[in-house]
């Protein structure tokens, strides 16, 4: 397949974040996840003229990332000799790359809105939402003040609400106020 640099950059920007999330799901290691995805993208570019890609570039990238993650985990297994642990870790997190690609438009928009946040704000939001850290814990992790964390979380919520406003209203009809009754 022939691809020019602009198409490559577009492919990169559209998929990088989601590919990293996908890798992180296997590795539980953000830095290695990013390294692996970057490696896959570099190889993809270097071999773009000789690769025979049967379906889409996107599907290829997800398969390549999964394979790299599997190899990485195998190396870890060999190094640390914790055979049974590594094997179970792999078994738990088998998300089929084909499933990953089938995403509802809502999910896609949410991921995109989160990805568009400035980096530090994105980090604060993800630590709160996905690792359940408290504001003081986030402040410590990111080396900022608690007040800054509060502002960042607030700004993130404000921005996300605005970006996703047109998709949210209908959700409210179905949503029961679980949090409210306490």
């Amino acid at each position, binding site marked *: 397949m022939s691809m*020019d640099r602009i198409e490559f950059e577009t492919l*990169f920007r559209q998929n990088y974040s989601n590919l990293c*999330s996908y890798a992180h799901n296997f590795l539980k290691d953000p830095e290695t996840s*990013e390294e692996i995805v970057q490696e896959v993208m570099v190889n993809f570019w270097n071999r773009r003229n000789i690769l025979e890609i049967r379906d889409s570039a996107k599907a290829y990238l997800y398969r390549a990332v999964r394979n790299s993650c599997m190899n990485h985990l195998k190396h870890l297994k060999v190094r640390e000799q914790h055979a049974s642990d590594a094997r179970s870790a792999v078994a738990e997190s088998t*998300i089929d790359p084909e499933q990953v690609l089938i995403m509802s438009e809502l999910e896609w928009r949410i991921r995109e809105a*989160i990805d568009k946040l400035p980096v530090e704000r994105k980090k604060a939001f993800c630590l709160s*939402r996905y690792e359940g850290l408290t504001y003081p814990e986030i402040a410590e992790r990111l080396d900022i003040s608690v007040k800054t964390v509060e502002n960042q979380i607030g700004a993130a*919520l404000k921005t996300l609400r605005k970006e996703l*406003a047109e998709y949210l209203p209908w959700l409210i009809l179905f949503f029961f*106020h679980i949090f409210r009754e306490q």
Partner: protein
Amino acid sequence: MNQNRHNIEEHLLLDYLLGRAPVPEKEYVERWLNEDAEHRKYLDQLEALWAETGKLTPIPLAVDVDAAWKRVSSRTASNGRVILMRTLFSAAALVILSLGIWFLYRIVNPPVKQVELATTNRVITDTLPDGSAITLNKNSSITYSASRRSPYREVKLHGEAVFNVTRDEDQPFLISSGKAFVKVLGTRFHVSARPGATVVVSVTEGTVQFFTVNSPPGDTISILLGAGDRAVLEPGSERPEMDNKGNPEELYWFDRSFMFNDTSLEDVFKLLRDHFGTEIRVTEQTILKCRLTSTFVNEPPDMILKIIAETFGLSLTMEQQIYVLSGKGCEGKTI
């Protein structure tokens, strides 16, 4: 619109939703909720947002895409010079001849800044010695030369480029391609000059003089183009002519833009199908007669269709991968 006037810090609302607000905070939030029905609605939206973001699998990773791209970009930097080299070698005789003449010339004349750029399969952007920026489309080349003594900064163009020229009244920028010339003080414009094809010049900013030189009698026919103007020189013709209608996809290679100027929706949809494979159906044939004047830069087809629907008061739905537009069409109506 009450979007930004909620007058409460969102993180307090979040604490409240998660049941971790201490009593005084909780009471503060509840007082705020009771002030206005809009406040409660806002809280509901945050609640829905929190719930929906939690459903993502796998969970998003907070990555710095720009920094990552910089790294990948430098690791995959291909050598523009390689293409330049290949082009030079294939025109070896010409280069050797030029070098010979250049050596003689150099002895008698002050040093000339000379730059050559060429593309085959890629679009490249570069800066000329005078600070002007140039983006070259595929299969194009330019030669830039200027010295302190020359009356012009001269560029010979084969193919297609977008220029952003630095202003220098003492040394205007002069582009030539065959018999077409474009003289510039300092502006932003686009030139397409492929052999045997119509020469096109369109100006975004500033003023440009587009002219031909008739050999003999040696007089010039020229027109002055300002911002938003476009002119063409047909292959057999000696005279540049204004043509503001243009081709909607003329600058797609440069910034993924479409420029519709009184274009019928029938043509717009054909273009969307050609570029993106988008299938579009209309419920009324008269919809196809509506005429659109609008420019889209780097917009995906679904966004373009949304805007068209809003512009003409149509409704847009999707049935099995096909977009359907319905509503009242136009009878020779222009918007």
